[in-house]
């Protein structure tokens, strides 16, 4: 079976900056694929390379097995939902949605019918004659989605589509997008810097850092088995120890990660059995209701964080500068690749 999207050794540089540094990847048909990374990591450039807004310096971009490296965007069967929605301000909602069929010379009666169906699909029936300026952020988002889906693309590209929405709306749209993708069976390529969003929605996630893919795996695997320190920190918010610090803590310089929820905070006098312990001084304690998050400066050198349930009975000194002892089991440690 041919991949919906394939990159073979794709590179794109802007001046001195290697935005995409020899990336190879393959996205299966019908997959919900997320590209996750901090800003400037190359994920948006990859999306633009799939859409055709940008062309690779070297390597090949394939859509459905066909090399499209030099094909302009208007000849590719992919459509994009833009970060700023990019709705045409001089057209009504209906005209915006019907734009794809219009430039493909579909009769005006048919494109109106299809546009109405798309507006039904995104629950915006009744908004046909509004202008984009008269819509809320969430509604614009839906119009952008309808406009991109009306061409029945093989791949839908979404560039941080929920970035401008407030938290509640974002969570609703996440569920809706996921349902829509399952129902339509279209390949979704979703660019985001929000690891929660990437993990909760996607079948697979590619984690980008400095133009390269650090790890490409399912959400569960990324979280439980991060391969590099970057992935462990960025995806799981994990504590990472390497080199000297790892040596002092565990007696081996093999880098490892341990997630905050696996780390216990104890009084300095406690001596747990069978656990790795590390002493340090409290930097800060953030209260989150059911849990609290502790930042501790270890004597070994790193800053570790630990999540502590409010229900845990024993009082531990928590003022900045107080001495505490952190402890975790060896099973909770994930070995990382040495760098």
């Amino acid at each position, binding site marked *: 079976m041919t991949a919906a999207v394939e990159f073979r050794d794709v590179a794109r540089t802007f001046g001195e900056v290697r935005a995409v540094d020899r990336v190879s990847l393959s996205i299966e048909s019908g997959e919900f694929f997320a590209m996750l990374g901090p800003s400037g990591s190359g994920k948006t450039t990859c999306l633009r390379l799939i*859409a*055709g*807004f940008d062309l690779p310096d070297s390597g090949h971009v394939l859509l459905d097995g066909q090399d499209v490296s030099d094909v*302009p*965007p*208007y000849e590719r069967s*992919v*459509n*994009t939902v*833009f*970060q*700023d929605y*990019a709705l*045409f*301000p*001089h057209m009504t909602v209906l005209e915006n949605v019907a*734009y*794809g069929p*219009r*430039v*493909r010379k579909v009769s005006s009666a048919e494109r109106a019918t299809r546009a109405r169906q798309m507006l039904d699909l995104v629950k915006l029936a009744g908004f046909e004659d509004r202008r984009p300026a008269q819509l809320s952020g969430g509604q614009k988002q839906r119009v952008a989605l309808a*406009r*991109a889906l009306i*061409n029945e693309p093989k791949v839908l590209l979404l560039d941080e589509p929920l970035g401008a929405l407030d938290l509640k709306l974002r969570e609703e749209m996440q569920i809706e997008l996921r349902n829509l993708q399952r129902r339509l069976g279209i390949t979704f390529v979703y660019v985001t810097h929000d690891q929660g969003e990437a993990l909760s929605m996607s079948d697979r996630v590619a984690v980008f850092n400095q133009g390269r893919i650090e790890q490409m795996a399912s959400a569960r695997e990324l979280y439980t088995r991060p391969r590099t320190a970057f992935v462990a920190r960025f995806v799981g918010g994990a504590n990472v120890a390497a080199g000297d610090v790892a040596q002092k803590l565990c007696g081996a310089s093999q880098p490892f990660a341990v997630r905050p929820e696996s780390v216990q905070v104890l009084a300095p006098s406690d001596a747990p059995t069978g656990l790795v312990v590390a002493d340090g001084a409290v930097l800060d304690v953030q209260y989150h209701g059911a849990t609290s998050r502790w930042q501790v400066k270890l004597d070994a050198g790193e800053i570790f964080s630990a999540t502590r349930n409010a229900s845990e009975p024993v009082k531990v000194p928590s003022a900045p500068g107080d001495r505490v002892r952190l402890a975790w089991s060896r099973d909770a440690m994930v070995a990382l690749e040495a760098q």
Partner: protein
Amino acid sequence: MNATATVLPSMGGPLRGLSTFFYRRSTLYLFLLLVPPLLWLGTVYLGTLFALLMQSFYSIDEFTAQIVRKPTLATYKALVTQPANLDIVFRTMSMAVCVTIASAIIAFPIANYMVRYASSRAKAVFYVAVLVPMWTSYLVKVYAWRLILAKEGILSWFFHAIGADALLEAILQAPGIGGPSVASSYLGMFIVFVYMWLPYMILPIAAALERVPGSLIQASADLGARPATTFRTVIFPLAMPGLAAGSIFTFSLTLGDYIIPSIVGAPGYFIGMMVYQQQGTAGNIPLAAAFSVVPIVLIALYLAFVKRLGAFDAL
């Protein structure tokens, strides 16, 4: 009590009292700020325009050459019934329309290139290149053009040098636009007008194009539109307000100008020259006023026309 002192540092003085006074009465503050400009706009600017309109409803006594200060439509009647006057209006309007269309056709690609394709450095160079001619004296430019277009000027020299004298001759033979030399033809006048007003067309179009986000053009391509279609359905409609603003400049500047037609071009009168002559040598202020009303009416009609075309829908 020391705490209060740190929250409200004492700055004292009468100015502080005054600023507090105005801060708490923002309507009064706004009113005081707006009175001088509104007085200017109301009395000096609109008042003189109104006085001009009044003048056009007076008439002139044929024998004494005195102005009769009694409201009458006689001056307007003379304006619209005398074929010579109508000729002037028609000639000026045709020139304004041609200049506007030509300016738009030349300006659009330049503005589009400046905004969409030029590097930030090239863009700065373009803006300077568009603006610098506007800093130069208007008269110098017009006289320079007369020399360029004269019979012994650079233009005929150039046509001669490339062996195209016959072509230039043929152009000058053309009815309506031709003449003894380019400098004394309507074609020459048209060239100078387009040169003079081009920046006023480029800048508003460039400003309108600057406001079109690049993502709209990408979205159009993404949805399957070829560049020509994107231009027709997205870029051009969104640039229309700029085009309309620019065309109002070129149209009204051509309608009102009296220097270019009197230095370059054929001897036929233009509205501006007529106003100049009627209020000066002829001393017929009412007719001069009536002639000045013509461009106002034409511009109003033009605005209504472009509004119907939907030029302001994207505002």
